[in-house]
Every structure is written in structure tokens, then in C-alpha cells.
């Protein structure tokens, strides 16, 4: 039976570990990244006959190379290519948390978003249109309250469904006729994409095209992501292109 590798990403204090523990129960163990003091935890759970391995990445605000944690998270996503990324988003600090979500989306790995601490957000009078957000981010969104164990089953279903390339679900509690887990917007509508506007897109698009036409590069790295990073003059992106 094939093992499904799922990376758990999120900003610090988004409740990542709580969700991780909720999904894996007591079966997680702690491991160290070699040579670094940052922990990488892995844990497993079974769902509908599938074994899912969760890899808990260090909490990062972003995926640049600013800190060791960011480099670890980014290298794992880039080189290990997990089947799905579970992005834990603090619903009460949505704007800041989406900064990381955008970067994850740009890496082209299918996303499942846990909109966590929904009780806190609602307590502050915030109303989040998960339906609209799901459509914009092209990802399944599950509302969760990690510390009360709410949303675990829905997350497992969303992860499996996303892994199978199913339709992404348009918000908590909705169902579609074809797969029973979404509202029927298929992935064919394309990946999540940030429009960088008329000043940057004319530079970005040809670069993206050029990178995607290089078989060595396009086999390894998402062209759009690499183009954006090269445009940012990111040293790691320069190194990756230089190696090939």
C-alpha cells in the first residue's frame, strides 16, 4: 500500500502542533533534522485504508532563506515533493497567515487549508467567507478548532480527496454530486496564481515560459515559482538554476 506524504506547514502560533497531534493521536515521534536544532516531527494515521505520514515542518512566517527554519521548510517542499501540503492558518490573524499560504500555493503542491482557531475568530466578530477564499486559493478549506478536536475527520477526508486529485471543496460542510466532498469546481481550472500586475507580469511570463521549456528545470521545479524567485534575486533560486 502506498504511503501518502503530507507536509504540515504554517506560521508560528497557528496551532500547527495541535492539529498535528489531533490527526496523529499518540503515534507521533520526535526526530531531528541533521545538524540543526530544529525538530522535524513525523507521525502517521490510517484513513480509509490509506497510510498517511505527516511531516511537521518548522513554523515559518515565509519561505525565503532568511532563517534556518525557513530553509528547512523550503528545502523539504522543494526536494521531497510531498503529495499534499496541509497549511495551518490562524483564522484570527488571516491576513498575515495568508502570506505563507501564497508562497505555498506558488510552489505548485496541492494545498489543503485548515482554517484554525475559528472559534477565536468568530468570538472577535470576524466572519470568513470560506467559500470565496477556497475559490480564490484553489484549495480545500476546512474550518477547525484544534484544541477542541474539531475538524479532524474533515481534514483527513480533504487530504485524501486532494491526494486523489479530486475536486477541491468550496468550504466547510458543502458537498458535490460527483465526489460527495466538494462543490464540483475541478482542478482543471488551474492552480492558484497571484497576478503581479502589468508592470511585473510582462517580465515574469517570458521567464516562466523559458524555464518551463527547459526539460531539466521543469522536471524538478515549478517554473512559475522559480521565475518569481529569480525575479526577487533570490540567491537559492540562482543556485538551483546554476546547478543544472
Amino acid at each position, binding site marked *: 500500500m502506498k504511503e501518502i506524504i503530507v507536509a504540515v506547514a504554517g506560521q508560528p*502560533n497557528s496551532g500547527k502542533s495541535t492539529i498535528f497531534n489531533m490527526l496523529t493521536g499518540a503515534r507521533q515521534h520526535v526526530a531531528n533534522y541533521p545538524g540543526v536544532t530544529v525538530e522535524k516531527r513525523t507521525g502517521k494515521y490510517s484513513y480509509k485504508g490509506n497510510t498517511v505520514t505527516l511531516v511537521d515542518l518548522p513554523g515559518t*512566517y*515565509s519561505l*525565503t532563506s*532568511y532563517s534556518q527554519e525557513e530553509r528547512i521548510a523550503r528545502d523539504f517542499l522543494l526536494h521531497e515533493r510531498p503529495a499534499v501540503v496541509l497549511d495551518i492558518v490562524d483564522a*484570527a490573524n488571516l*491576513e*498575515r497567515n495568508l*502570506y505563507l499560504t501564497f508562497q505555498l500555493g506558488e510552489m505548485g503542491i496541492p494545498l489543503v487549508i485548515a482554517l484554525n482557531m475559528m472559534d477565536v475568530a468568530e468570538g472577535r466578530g470576524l466572519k470568513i467567507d470560506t467559500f470565496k477564499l477556497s475559490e480564490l486559493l484553489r484549495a480545500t478549506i476546512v474550518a477547525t478548532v484544534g484544541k477542541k478536536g474539531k475538524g479532524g475527520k474533515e481534514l483527513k477526508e480533504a487530504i485524501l480527496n486532494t491526494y486523489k486529485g479530486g475536486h477541491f471543496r468550496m468550504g466547510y460542510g458543502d458537498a458535490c454530486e460527483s465526489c460527495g466532498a466538494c462543490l464540483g469546481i475541478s482542478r482543471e481550472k488551474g492552480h492558484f496564481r497571484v497576478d503581479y500586475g502589468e508592470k511585473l507580469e510582462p517580465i515574469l511570463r517570458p521567464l516562466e515560459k523559458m524555464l518551463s521549456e527547459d526539460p531539466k528545470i521543469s522536471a524538478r521545479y515549478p517554473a512559475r515559482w522559480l521565475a518569481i524567485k529569480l525575479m526577487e*534575486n533570490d540567491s537559492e533560486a540562482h543556485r538551483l538554476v546554476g546547478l543544472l
Partner: protein
Amino acid sequence: MKTNVMPLTVASPNKRIKIISLAGGRGMQERLISMGLGPGAEIEVIRKGAPGPFIVAVGEARLAIGAGMAQKIMVSDNGMY
């Protein structure tokens, strides 16, 4: 009223302030933006640092930042509030 721009390190605590611009290199600026401390963000200094970190409120979150980072955040506290 003329807008008074100063580094976060000299801003008065417990007062709504607005981030006007960021100093520092690309890495530092990106870091600050990713933490929700980008231009336009409305924040409040909860605790003045030096010694110790500055504690700032961004929305409902509290962030602890060192004096070096705080020095690179240019804020304004008049003319708007």
C-alpha cells in the same frame, strides 16, 4: 499637519501608529512584511525594548522584535489619529 516619521524605537507606547516604510536590505524587508509588519500596517507598541525586545500589537497578535529590527521600521503617529 506634517507627518512625523520616526523609527519604531522612539515611538510612544500604547498609541496607534502606522508603518510608513521599511529600511534595511531585501531579506530584512521581506521578513518584516511576512510577519505582518509591512508599510500601511497599523500597530501599537505594547512594551518599549532596549533592554529586551519590543512588543508590538499587530491586529490581535503580539510580536516580540529586537531593537535592530525595530530600528528599521519607520512609523508615523500624528496627522492620522
